């Protein structure tokens, strides 16, 4: 399998404070890769660095072309959808407008309304609230909206930042079932950042463990999941 994303020696800093110290990782086409690690390890920073929301250096190759010097808006145009920390909802706009915004980089005719119907079929609860202000949605609904908005791009790669954050366990299950469904049926590659390691490892094919800005460990998700010592020392469950 060829790599959708190839990252070498990725570094990033906030001001003078260096957060990422040369990360190397790959995302195979159509696979789910997860980045695990404690609070402050640099997971969110990695996602932000990948799509140019902060200054970064190193090699970032997406589908064989370098995106290390590209602006966020241009990276999105290549089919990279970022579901950000905090879900990035346009709270003052309606649910449907939020979804339409996801397709902003596609040309106007291009089956956008059809895609909205598909998303609504996928998330019936969003359909019920289509003309409601998105800020009035619950956390779980906003997470679904964020995923729906990302899908509207018809992405080839999705970057997901803690989709389980702040959600009730039942809703978390629902969201992860949806992600599994997307992987099965749409062939979207995913980079999943999670604190909930057991959930993430269940969905993922490949896992990387980040510790204070460098990769401490990597391997197939199943192996890491089954390795008692890794679980005890890194994942704490």
């Amino acid at each position, binding site marked *: 399998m060829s790599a959708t994303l190839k990252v070498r020696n990725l570094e990033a800093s906030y001001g003078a404070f260096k957060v990422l110290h040369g990360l190397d990782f790959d995302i195979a086409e159509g696979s789910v890769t997860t980045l695990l690690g404690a609070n402050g390890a640099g997971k969110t920073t990695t996602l932000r660095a990948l799509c140019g*929301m902060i200054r970064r250096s190193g090699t970032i190759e997406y589908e064989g072309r370098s995106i290390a010097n590209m602006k966020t808006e241009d990276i*999105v145009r290549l089919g990279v959808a970022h579901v*950000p920390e905090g879900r*990035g*909802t*346009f709270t003052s*706009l309606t649910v449907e*407008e939020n979804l339409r*915004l996801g397709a902003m980089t596609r040309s106007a005719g291009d089956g956008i309304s059809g895609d909205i119907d598909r998303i609504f079929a996928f998330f019936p609860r969003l359909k019920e609230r289509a003309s409601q202000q998105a800020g009035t949605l619950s956390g779980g609904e906003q997470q679904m909206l964020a995923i729906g908005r990302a899908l509207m791009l018809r992405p080839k790669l999705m970057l997901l930042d803690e989709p389980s954050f702040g959600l009730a366990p039942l809703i978390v299950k629902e969201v992860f079932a949806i992600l599994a469904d997307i992987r099965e049926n749409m062939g979207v590659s995913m980079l999943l950042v999670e604190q909930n390691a057991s959930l993430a490892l269940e969905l993922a094919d490949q896992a990387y463990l980040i510790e204070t800005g460098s990769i401490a460990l990597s391997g197939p998700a199943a192996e890491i999941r089954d390795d008692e010592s890794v679980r005890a020392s890194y994942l704490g469950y």
Partner: protein
Amino acid sequence: METFIQQVLAGIATGGIYACMALAVVMIYQAIHHLNFAQGEMAMFSTFIAWQLLQWGIPYWLAFGLTIVISLIGGYVLERSVFKPIHNAPVLSHIVIFIALFAIFNSLAGFIWDFTIKPFPSPFGNAPLFGGGLIGGHQAGMIIITLVVLLILFAFFRYTRVGLAMRAAAANPESAKLVGIRVGVMTGLGWGMASAVGAVAGILIAPVVFLEPNMMLSILLYGFAGAVLGGLSSPGGAVLGGFTVGVVENLAGTYIPVVGAELKLPIALFLIVAVLVFKPTGLFGQRVVQRV
């Protein structure tokens, strides 16, 4: 009764101008969260451009359209060249630049076209309509054109993709980038449209207040009052606020003997203070609640 209707209609006519200025102010406020003090001077400058085009013998409506296009481009270029570099700068830097722009546009207009008061033509004439003299031709024209402009803007923001992108860029710039919107371009476009709306207001009010570099000073103040009354976070509210200020100003001038024509302007200031004291978000604004 007839005086009353007359005054209300006249209030709606000038209110439309205030509504345009209020909307221009709110459009920029939404995008960069600062009040553009120079909005009125930009509108005045646009009006001088229209006057110049008319002096060169260009027909009224062509000059009208050209001025709008020039203002649109001018507003865009102004944002990209002056405000883009300082968009992360503190409030004071913005205020200083607004004051500088105010002074520059004002004196530049005086320098190019001098400070003498000039008449400005109206395409509608001033003959009273409907025989009864309830409303003058130019006033009726003002109402119609401002309503058309406001409707076009409403449709643009509500039903077009660019309009949606502009709203998204103003509401949540970071997320907007993540769906591929060029936020900077949208901000520039917002400035362009605001200055185009201001140009319409200037051209329409010029036959009433006459053309000179300080013509928009009080108009902008009424526009601010309208924007504050309606709520700075609500474009629709700002428009309604503008119309309300126009009507209130006119009725107060007519029916409250103390106020008369001389004390009309303080009514705008009084409104601003009253709204800020009793309902700081304005009639239609949303309270910004920050989650921590």
